[in-house]
């Protein structure tokens, strides 16, 4: 199989060129993971909440057809236009058609991972529409011409001095000023003008309630609300899996979401959009883009329970030290690594291998997705389908051949120890990935098997 030029390992290598920066990135994300723990521990019923959230989402996935119809009916009764998009292209076309209908060329957009997944910004720009991302972190990476590196913290990989320089170039702030307070104030001014002049606002959706037809959008900055309330048209874009059955279920999910994401008790704004404001039109675009197909795959379907909190990224030892961009997909980290191959197995074949399978992601997931088990399952599917590199395949076959034959295992252990002892350069070289950033261990004198037999002889037979 033809190997992609820039897979996770290569991109992670690039990120790891600057070790102090990797350490900083690692620590920053771990700090957020710790905040999540503190927030979770304050809720006695935390585990029961996770279980309830998981069960509600299981129910949603098993009954999505009915819930979507109910949601559509309610939303239409609320005066909202509902659109259905089978894939990313159709989603982009629908959104563009609405914008065009209103004769608008400049729009604002709050955070939406779905629109990242569909590459809406690029598409609209090709049609001559200027999209301004209004979440501060997203605006920063947009000005820099990059995708977000984290679903909740889009510019977590940026240092304040670099943001100061970026703002100096694009927003005309004084050179050398890297004070977060000052830079945020400058962005506030800059984006206020956009809010004041934009007639169309796009938002994502955190939860869509089938019972009421309302969509709930959570932000800390208030950018979704400001955009929508000052616009003539509100377009809310959502994956079909964002449905929850009833309003009361929001109680469960809003208790879990922000605590899992950043350790906050709740986001500053949890806004329930049910009917457009007088004089405004509201559209909801329901997007499939591979989701209905994914639902048919028993092993992987429950990845669709994800509520996009990012807890699995903050805790992941690989994500923290490889950076979000090394995943080359809109959603990075463990959850992205099980979602991306479902969309394009060949393109994202490297991602399920970007994990230690330590299981920490599954432990923090607020809706109990078995992320690490799915990573392992994906590896099997990918190898069987021939989507791994010849080197990896040869390595795995070699390991299998040795590990399944005790005789060969014993001999190769002895041979390995001999080489490590007398010709260490054979393993201590750049070609051996285990030698990267670490010394190889000292060579043991004997194998465990040899030690055991010797020990047993010396100490008699008492177990």
């Amino acid at each position, binding site marked *: 199989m033809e190997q992609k030029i820039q897979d996770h390992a290569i991109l992670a290598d690039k990120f790891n060129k600057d070790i102090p920066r990797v350490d900083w990135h690692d620590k920053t994300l771990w700090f957020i993971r710790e905040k999540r723990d503190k927030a979770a521990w304050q809720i006695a019923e935390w585990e029961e909440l996770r279980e309830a959230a998981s069960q509600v989402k299981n129910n949603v*996935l098993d009954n999505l057809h009915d819930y979507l119809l109910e949601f559509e009916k309610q939303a239409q009764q609320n005066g909202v236009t509902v659109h259905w998009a089978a894939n990313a292209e159709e989603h982009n076309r629908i959104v563009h058609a609405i914008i065009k209908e209103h004769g608008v060329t400049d729009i604002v957009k709050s955070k939406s991972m779905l629109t990242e997944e569909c590459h809406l910004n690029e598409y609209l720009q090709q049609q001559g529409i200027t999209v301004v991302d209004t979440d501060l972190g997203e605006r920063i990476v947009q000005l820099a011409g990059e995708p977000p590196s984290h679903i909740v913290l889009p510019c977590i990989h940026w240092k304040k001095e670099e943001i100061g320089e970026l703002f100096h170039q694009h927003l005309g702030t004084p050179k050398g000023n890297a004070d977060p307070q000052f830079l945020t104030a400058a962005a506030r001014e800059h984006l206020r003008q956009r809010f004041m002049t934009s007639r169309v606002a796009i938002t994502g959706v955190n939860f869509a309630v089938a019972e009421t037809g309302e969509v709930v959008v959570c932000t800390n900055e208030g950018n979704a609300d400001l955009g929508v309330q000052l616009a003539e048209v509100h377009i809310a874009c959502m994956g079909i899996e964002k449905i929850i059955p009833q309003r009361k279920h929001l109680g469960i999910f809003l208790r879990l979401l922000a605590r899992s994401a950043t350790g906050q008790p*709740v986001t500053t704004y949890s806004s329930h959009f049910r009917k457009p404001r007088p004089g405004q039109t509201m559209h909801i675009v329901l997007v499939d883009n591979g989701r209905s197909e994914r639902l048919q795959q028993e092993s992987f379907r429950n990845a669709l329970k994800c509520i996009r909190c990012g807890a699995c990224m903050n805790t992941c030892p690989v994500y923290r030290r490889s950076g979000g961009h090394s995943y080359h997909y809109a959603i990075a980290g463990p959850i992205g690594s099980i979602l991306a191959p479902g969309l394009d197995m060949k393109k994202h074949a490297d991602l399920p291998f970007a994990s230690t399978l330590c299981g920490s992601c599954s432990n923090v997931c607020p809706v109990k997705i078995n992320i690490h088990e799915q990573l392992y399952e994906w590896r099997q599917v990918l190898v069987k389908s021939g989507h791994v590199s010849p080197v990896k395949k040869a390595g795995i076959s070699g390991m299998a051949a040795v590990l399944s034959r005790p005789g060969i295992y014993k001999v190769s252990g002895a041979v390995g120890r001999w080489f490590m002892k007398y010709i260490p350069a054979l393993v201590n070289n750049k070609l051996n990935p285990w030698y990267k950033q670490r010394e190889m261990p000292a060579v043991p004198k004997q194998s465990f098997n040899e030690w055991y037999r010797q020990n047993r002889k010396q100490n008699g037979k008492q177990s």
Partner: protein
Amino acid sequence: MESRAKILQALSKKFTDHPAPLPDVKAFPPTAGDPVDKFEFILRGIGGRTVRVSSYTEIDEYIAKEYTSGARIISLVKEVAGSAITPDIDPHTFENVDLVVLQPHFGVAENGAAWITSDRMGDRALPFISQHIALVITTDSILHTMHEAYEQIGNADHPFGTFIAGPSKTADIEQSLVLGAHGPKSMTVFLLSR
């Protein structure tokens, strides 16, 4: 409409013989302690201010002390001084509002949030566009958890409603917390006991 039919058809396939039942939402016991104290503690922790008052006059006095006479203050609480708004006004004209005073339905102790609906906002843009926001919450309306909150909301048909928990904020630049991202730079909650 072709895609609608296609998606629904794909979803109508039976995935399992045992579809997961919808669980009951359990009523979790509230944590011990006074919900008003907890609300105050949590809200201060997320950048909000709280002021305990026993009359609307005290609220007026507090605002008069904090804001100059030239400040544009809009009050949707009839007992609190401030200008009213005319219906059907262009929301962009609120750009220079310094303070908006609103009365939410209730507060939630566990997260410092207050539930407010469009009928109490004057204009839906006001809670977000104003430079500062003040809320008047009666102490007897503070609930323990979000479950209680949704029980209280029930099936009320509000065109728009939002939980607001503190001032607009961001920590996108190196995790440094900055209050006043796009919306209000401060939030003051008057805890009114009667």
